[in-house]
């Protein structure tokens, strides 16, 4: 079995907090990390590999330095990695991103299962997985929290929805997007780290994928960002002072006046 895992490099938010006055991110330097959900996607793939000796290939579309993220997945035990990088890819919306990733999965030729994270923490759309599956014409399941197999070799996944839990059966090839419940990501191992350091990571551009430059990136996108701005700041923050009884009384009044339901 061949599993493709899609990972995205995103700005690190770990040491970041929100400036209360400007309401913008305060960053200590600009480090990039692997999108947290994608570490769970990698882990899900590696767990299948542990049981079945599947081959796992990590894919990312991004600028040249995204190679670093791919090396990190290799050091955790991923077998191979491919970087999709081309100036023409810049400014991709989810459609153009999915077009590029789907072309790469097709080029790998023998992929049985694609695993994505639930969503990327910067773009936050959760659209790339489902759109990619549609372009590849394979079934998919989103919000997967655990993965099993049926005796017939189909995938049996548990989904976490707003209303509860659903258990679905999917034939291969298919695509899933995963939640943190699939398992705590393993640490890089020394052996894999050595291998990761030396690994050759191929770079595929639009031409390698058989995509014309105007079908990818900003040109190939259907949505267009026309304005980016800071969210309106919460202006009227109040602190409630006094003894706990006074605080309880004041909070009760505050919520009552705000007509908060249930109070």
């Amino acid at each position, binding site marked *: 079995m061949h599993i493709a895992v899609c990972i995205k490099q995103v700005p690190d938010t770990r040491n970041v907090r*929100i400036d209360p006055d400007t309401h*913008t991110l305060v960053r200590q330097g*600009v480090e990039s990390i692997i999108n947290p959900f994608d570490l769970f996607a990698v882990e899900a793939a590696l767990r299948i590999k542990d049981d079945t000796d599947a081959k796992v290939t990590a894919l990312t579309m991004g600028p040249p330095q995204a190679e670093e993220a791919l090396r990190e997945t290799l050091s955790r035990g991923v077998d191979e990695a491919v970087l999709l990088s081309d100036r023409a890819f810049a400014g991709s919306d989810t459609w153009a991103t999915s077009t590029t990733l789907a072309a790469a999965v097709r080029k790998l030729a023998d992929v049985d299962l694609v695993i994505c994270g639930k969503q990327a923490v910067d773009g936050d759309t959760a659209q790339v997985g489902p759109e990619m599956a549609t372009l590849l014409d394979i*079934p998919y399941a989103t919000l997967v929290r655990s993965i099993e197999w049926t005796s017939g070799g189909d995938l049996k996944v548990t989904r976490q929805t*707003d209303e509860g839990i659903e258990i679905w059966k999917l034939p291969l090839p298919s695509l899933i997007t995963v939640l943190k419940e699939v398992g705590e990501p393993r640490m890089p191992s020394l052996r894999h780290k050595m291998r990761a350091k030396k690994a050759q990571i191929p770079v595929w551009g639009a031409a390698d994928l058989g995509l014309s430059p105007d079908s990818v990136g900003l040109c190939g*996108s259907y949505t267009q*960002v026309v304005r980016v701005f800071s969210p309106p700041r919460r202006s009227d923050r109040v602190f409630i002072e006094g003894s706990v009884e006074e*605080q309880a009384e004041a909070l009760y009044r505050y919520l009552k006046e705000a007509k908060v339901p249930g109070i």
Partner: protein
Amino acid sequence: MKAIVDKKKCTVCGVCSDACPMGAITVGETHVDISDDCTLCGICVDTCEFGALSLPQVGTGPEEDLGLYSGVWVWAEWRDGSVHRVSHELLSAGRMLADKRSAPLCAVLLGSGLKENLSRELITFGADVVYVVDRPELARFTDEAYANVLVELIRTRKPEILLAGATSTGRSFIPRVAASLRTGLTADCTELDISEDGHLLQTRPAFGGNVMATIICPNRRPQMATVRPRVMKPLVIAGHEGRIENVSVPDECLKSRVEVLEVIPEQDQTARLTEAEVIISGGRGLRKAENFALLQELAGLVGGAVGASRGAVEEGWICPSHQVGQTGRTVAPSLYMAVGIAGAIQHVVGMQGSKFIVAVNKDPQAPIFDVAGCGVVADLFEFLPAFIRKIRQERGETS
């Protein structure tokens, strides 16, 4: 491609360079330079007071006559025999858009054994037409059947705009609809408007809510958006009339390669976070599992749900389905009360869309106070019992 610098306007103040999440802007002698690391995210554009930065424009132009499309559609979500609240909200938002476009507002209801009162309800909230596809294959949700049916309806009737709730179901199958129709989709919008020339102006939070972006879909139709629940206001239009149309679709559309084996609704009502009007959330400050009973008691009193930080979940004090944040649920209730939660960014991104945020923490420097509308600096073990007593007392109950 990268962001464009107007060298005449640039004052080399460096604000954009600090704001760039990719570190792609360097400040030169006379103007800033943008490196190949630029991902065209657009954050710099807004930070520049001098209008020196802009983004290149998308696209290859429309491939077909966009004037063929008209009308605003809402995918009407329902469950347990009633319409989901988000569909009421979307109809009200859709009504405003349809009126501005002088076009009809239509609701699409998919399912099996659908009662007529569901359609009637959609009309009360402003729908002029309700398209109903009632088939046994649609009894349980699958992405393929739901998307294929909606695609079929859109192809034959050509609406200009399609809205759906950004629920777990909407966010799962609507991308398939958009990709099948080869059109754009904006995720999780919190504001919608329409420009004079018919562009749907879709505003949404990104970068974990730290940035807002307004997005259009200039060259394709329909213009599609999923919309965050509890943001738009639902409005009943008294005496509004509309018609119900049962639509038949080719059997081919109803096929799904996925088989739903089991559906297990969440029994613990306090874990139904995404639907709750009020969420009382606890963090590591609670010190032990038993103390969550305090939150349960308060949540019970106000008909709310109980949430948690990852800190509390990691301690094993409450199960992960209650976790709010980057790796948990994203919630936007009317009231979010964070008790003994520090307010790490990964927690905040999951709850900052809430209408009222109250923070209870003994540390006045806790970052949670930066996002709270109302801060209570207190020991939670003293404050919560006092607050619970207060509510009971107001209701004439004794504890």
